[in-house]
């Protein structure tokens, strides 16, 4: 029985539990002539949950632990002699698994029966060939010891799987039955299932924490490594970014942070006003037809791969800005510039601002609008003075999301703003950002253990801390503002 089928059995039991629990609640209530504390379906849910959750947890644990234990068991049977020089036990174990799997398939395809198998010996029969027939390719011929290990792997695995199946079904039945017995009209079934759902909700919100934890740990280790190789003071305070191959690089983060900030700023300067105006127009002014077309259409902008924007910046916008603005104004002759990347990125960010804001603007109750119109306000006054403040929390969220995306964007910057790290004010000059350098240092040619590559992790962590600071600041400002205006 595969885990999939087992899961299906548990699910079937769960569904059965649901109906049995529900029915028992109804029957008892009828017999005792009392009212149910909760809805009948809540009793069903409670029984179903008790049937499913412990069983599935057990199954998960088993699936996780079985290979580990099995591996331990079997790998002790493999003599060191069959492990190739420089190879690893784990690879031999992979072979063992593959052979065992192949034997299952052989039996399954009717090519062999169990007796044949147990009498089969690696030194006499061409096991590699037979397994190849059923589509299991092996790297080399099979050592007898490995074959024996595979056989015992197979038998232990078989027993263990059988045990697992029995245990899981027993747990499902047992807990389900206990829960079913518990069903009485006075049982607070709704609370049971709601507590459960609530813990699911809490669990879900912890995913974010876990992700952060994962990110920090996966960056921290190599960052520490980096700072052992490269002085932190230089990294944080040097204004030069100039990595070299054979050491002696200058890896100052400041020009990158500046570039990140500058490009994002330009992008938001375009995306926020335009996005907001689109949201306002679609929510307040436009007809249904335009709205139902324009909103999803503009959302496509968020789905165009960033590389397309990058090419657009590189081929169209960059040369255009150079020929029509930078050169006539004497501001430089670079076709990649902060402005190029910023503008193109701004276009990509428009839907982040427009669509989310549109939804919150749309959710402002009509009574607010009526109140304002009733005072003789024009529509735009109503929007600016009444609707926007009411929708502000959501709009701030949308803008923060857009800002976040701007900071994290790579491809557009590579192609639009260039790869040269520079501290400067001229928006028509090439600059680059932290993310660009994370990608390029990480995917480059330099050796991994060199500061030139490891700096990517330090950059990632720095950016993380930097945006964390910005977010805390934003939260603080939003709170402050809300206090003021409420």
């Amino acid at each position, binding site marked *: 029985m595969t885990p999939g089928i087992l899961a299906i059995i548990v699910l079937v039991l769960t569904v059965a539990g649901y109906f049995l629990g529900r029915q028992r609640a109804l029957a008892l209530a009828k017999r005792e002539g009392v009212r149910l504390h909760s809805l009948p379906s809540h009793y069903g849910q409670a029984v179903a949950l008790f049937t499913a959750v412990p069983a599935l947890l057990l199954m998960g644990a088993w699936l996780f632990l079985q290979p580990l234990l099995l591996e331990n068991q079997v790998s002790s049977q493999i003599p060191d002699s069959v492990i190739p020089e420089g190879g690893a036990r784990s690879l031999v174990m992979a072979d063992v698994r593959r052979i065992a799997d192949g034997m299952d398939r052989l039996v399954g395809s009717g090519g062999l029966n169990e007796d044949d198998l147990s009498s089969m010996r690696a030194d006499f029969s061409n096991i590699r060939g037979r397994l190849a027939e059923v589509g299991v390719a092996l790297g080399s011929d099979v050592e007898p010891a490995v074959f024996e290990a595979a056989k015992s792997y197979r038998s232990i695995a078989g027993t263990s799987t059988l045990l697992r199946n029995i245990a899981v079904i027993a747990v499902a039945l047992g807990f389900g039955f206990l829960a079913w017995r518990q069903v009485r009209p006075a049982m607070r079934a709704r609370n049971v299932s709601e507590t459960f759902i609530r813990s699911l909700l809490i669990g879900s919100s912890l995913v974010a924490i876990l992700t952060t934890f994962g990110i920090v740990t996966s960056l921290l280790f190599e960052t520490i490594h980096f700072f052992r190789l490269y002085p932190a003071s230089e990294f944080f305070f040097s204004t030069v970014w100039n990595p070299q191959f054979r050491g002696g690089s200058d890896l100052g983060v400041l020009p990158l942070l500046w570039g990140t900030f500058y490009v994002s700023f330009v992008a938001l300067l375009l995306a926020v006003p335009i996005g907001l105006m689109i949201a306002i127009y679609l929510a307040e002014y436009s007809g249904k037809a335009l709205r139902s077309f324009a909103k999803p259409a503009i959302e496509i902008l968020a789905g165009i791969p960033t590389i397309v924007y990058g090419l657009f910046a590189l081929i169209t916008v960059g040369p255009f800005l150079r020929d029509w603005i930078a050169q006539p104004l004497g501001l430089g002759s670079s076709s990649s510039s902060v402005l190029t990347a910023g503008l193109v990125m701004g276009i990509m960010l428009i839907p982040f601002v427009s669509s989310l804001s549109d939804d919150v603007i749309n959710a402002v*109750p*009509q*009574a*607010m*609008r*009526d*109140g*304002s*119109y*009733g*005072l*003789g*306000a*024009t529509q735009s*006054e109503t929007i600016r*003075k*009444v609707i926007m*403040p*009411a929708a502000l929390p959501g709009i701030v969220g949308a803008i923060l999301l857009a800002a976040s995306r701007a900071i994290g964007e790579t491809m557009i910057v590579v192609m639009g703003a260039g790869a040269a790290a520079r501290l400067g004010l001229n928006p028509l000059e090439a600059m680059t950002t932290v993310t660009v350098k994370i990608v390029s240092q990480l995917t480059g040619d330099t050796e991994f253990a060199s500061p030139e590559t490891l700096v990517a992790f330090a950059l990632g962590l720095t950016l993380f801390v930097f945006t964390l600071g910005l977010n805390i600041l934003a939260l603080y400002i939003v709170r402050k503002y809300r206090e003021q*205006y*409420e």
Partner: protein
Amino acid sequence: MNMLTDAAVEEKLQSASKPGVSKMVGKDVTVHYGEKQALFGVNLEVPEKQVMALIGPSGCGKSTFLRCLNRMNDTIDICRVGGSIMLDGEDIYDPRIDVVELRARVGMVFQKPNPFPKSIYENIAYGPRIHGLASKKSEFDEVVETSLQKAGLFNEVKDRLHEPGTGLSGGQQQRLCIARAIAVSPEVILMDEPCSALDPIATAKVEELIDELRENYTIVIVTHSMQQAARVSQRTAMFHLGNLVEEGPTDKMFTNPDDKRTQDYITGRFG
């Protein structure tokens, strides 16, 4: 509770019998909400500088008619208005007219209080600000204070002018909305049950305000309280099932109505 002193009756009779210019005139006003017809050809004249009360059972179309008078129904998608309504002889449903100006001249207090999610101060200062009625801080302070005074709310909220208007009690919100409407001093004020959430004292205060406003403004008020209609209005219109049943001087309506339904309604025998 005795409502009308003789003197008051006298005065009312006089003002109601004054020929009085019609400030607003509705001709054959019909309203549909989608399929459903809510008003069936209402003809009604609102005399200038008087108070007109609209009465009638719940759901008969009072609010609907009131909302027609400053085209507030425009905001309801499914609502269609027929017939014509004149303000000072100009058709307010003429496509060329300026709805904003119309609403500035015909203000409204809604049935459900709807304060803006802003501070109490800003709720009131909003109107004067958009109409440019005040510019200096001190002017705004003054408008806010006098408007709140008139609505009888100032004392209760004077310490919390900068707290949100949505944190007020039901009755306070209602008075806030009244204050907000009078702060822009429109020519006509439409009030949809302005006292429904108010205690008798606050009600008296608002009624006093209405009486005062009548000097300069035209007022249309929807009310469910016969006593209130009798106390504050010079003329009364009675609606029933989307029809205007009858309209006339208030005292006549309450003493000697032409229509049986009016009679029944005001004596509480309806139904």
